[in-house]
């Protein structure tokens, strides 16, 4: 397959979709942690 561009079905191959969702969940957890941590630290 060398030299031939990798086929890509819109970025939604199972592997890439899973990676996108994992990263989104991780970033969302960061957001929730900052939000909740911030309020709790001021109680």
């Amino acid at each position: 397959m060398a030299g031939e561009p990798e086929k890509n079905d819109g970025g939604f191959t199972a592997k890439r979709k899973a990676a996108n969702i994992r990263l989104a969940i991780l970033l969302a957890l960061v957001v929730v942690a900052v939000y909740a941590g911030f309020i709790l630290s001021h109680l």
Partner: protein
Amino acid sequence: MSDAVTHEHHHDAHDHKPTGMGRWLFSTNHKDIGTMYLVFALIMFFVGGAMALVVRAELFQPGLQYVDPQFFNSMTTMHALIMIFGVVMPAGVGLANWMVPMMIGAPDMALPRMNNMSFWILPFAFAMLLGTFFMEGGAPAGGWTMYPPLITQLGDGFPFLIFTVHFLGISSIMGAINIIATVFNMRAPGMGFMQLPLFVWTWIITAFLLIASMPVLAGAVTMLLTDKYFGTSFFIAAGGGDPVMFQHIFWFFGHPEVYILILPAFGIVSQIIPTFARKPLFGYVSMVYATAAIAFLSFFVWAHHMFTVGMPLAGELFFMYATMSIAVPTGVKIFNWIATMWRGAMTFETPMLFALAFVFLFSIGGFSGLMLGITPADFQYHDTYFVVAHFHYVLVTGAIFALMAGAYFWLPKWTGHMYDEKLGKIHFWISVISVNVLFFPQHFVGLAGMPRRIPDYSVQFTEWNMISSVGGFVFGLSQLLFLWVVIKCVRGGREATEEVWEGARGLEWTLPSPPPFHTFTTPPQVDEAVAHS
């Protein structure tokens, strides 16, 4: 493999796209969502602009003319909220939606359904915010900074303001997550981080700023809400709380927010100047590091917005020096833009004119920012029109001019038609002259002591205020010309080529103009020559 080939063939045969309202309501296409963001931002630009004109009409002469002070305060507050959250941020996200996937060779954003939700939250959030005008107690009037205890005295509109801010925050955070996932996971093979166009770099960094700062704002306004309705005393002095704490928290969000507004503008200008100077961007790597440095430092300067509330001398010194240190990476960027133009074969089409005006006028805003960052001087300038002049140079001749430059730069790519260059240049010259007539005199009245957010003023400030108001109306009305240029370009005009501009480099310029509904379903070959301009 056979599936993929069939898929490609399908798109070659007819570029399938949904039709009717469903195309927009349920869109998961980055180009359509980008268009919706940009149209929304343009509508809100005129709504927020109309409010600014009410302010300028009232300030045309001393005394109370047209509106009562409460409504005047609503106008300044809502103008700010709309321009920041409804214009500059959505326009930046709109440009990111359109351009980032095409620049990195991705078929779409990483999370297209979330992308749809990010956009559609906005019209409902702003409907809620604008609805406060019709409520008991009127629209928010305590300033966009929402300082307690003043803001908690707002009537029925208060919870709507708080929920609007929450919704806008959720929308921005989802947009930021999407951009990070897109750039991290969806780049075409061969495109490393150091091959990314500067616009993409500035958006990744902006996205991290959003993720770090927006939850802080959300936390602060949640605490305001519980203070008013649930008996807490985070910021109520009588209950043992600290109103000044809100200011610290707000500006811990607020200063990174300034860079959320301006970093994408830096990215746009970094795409445009090399194109029209017909030279690669000077100091690409230093541009990336300077952008990251600005973003990092933005978390350590918040208290320069509140020197006058009182803080320990060590605090004042720390925040003063930290603020000044931001001038170093910003200076690197200004130097690089100028060095890019040095001995370039420059031409001055409308996007380049707006980009050049950006470099020059944003620098004025930057320098007045340095003046404000000097603690003892700030005691004189604080809450005067000098501050208003400063941040309008940063946000109007900075952020808005860069967005205009980006719109002119990419309109031919989006629509497939060249815009009317003559009208574009007329729009530029009227805008650049009138915006200086509008905001430059505000330095003078500010230094002379005119306070901001007050509908009346001492008679000695009359002349400069009259001049400022005339500039304001000319600037505001001249934006209708921009609207006409955009409509004209969408409806027709000379056909744009793929490359559009002679000096354009990058993957987005290898696509047809307008690009088909689905692009880069097969990742492109990335080489150094097209990776970044």
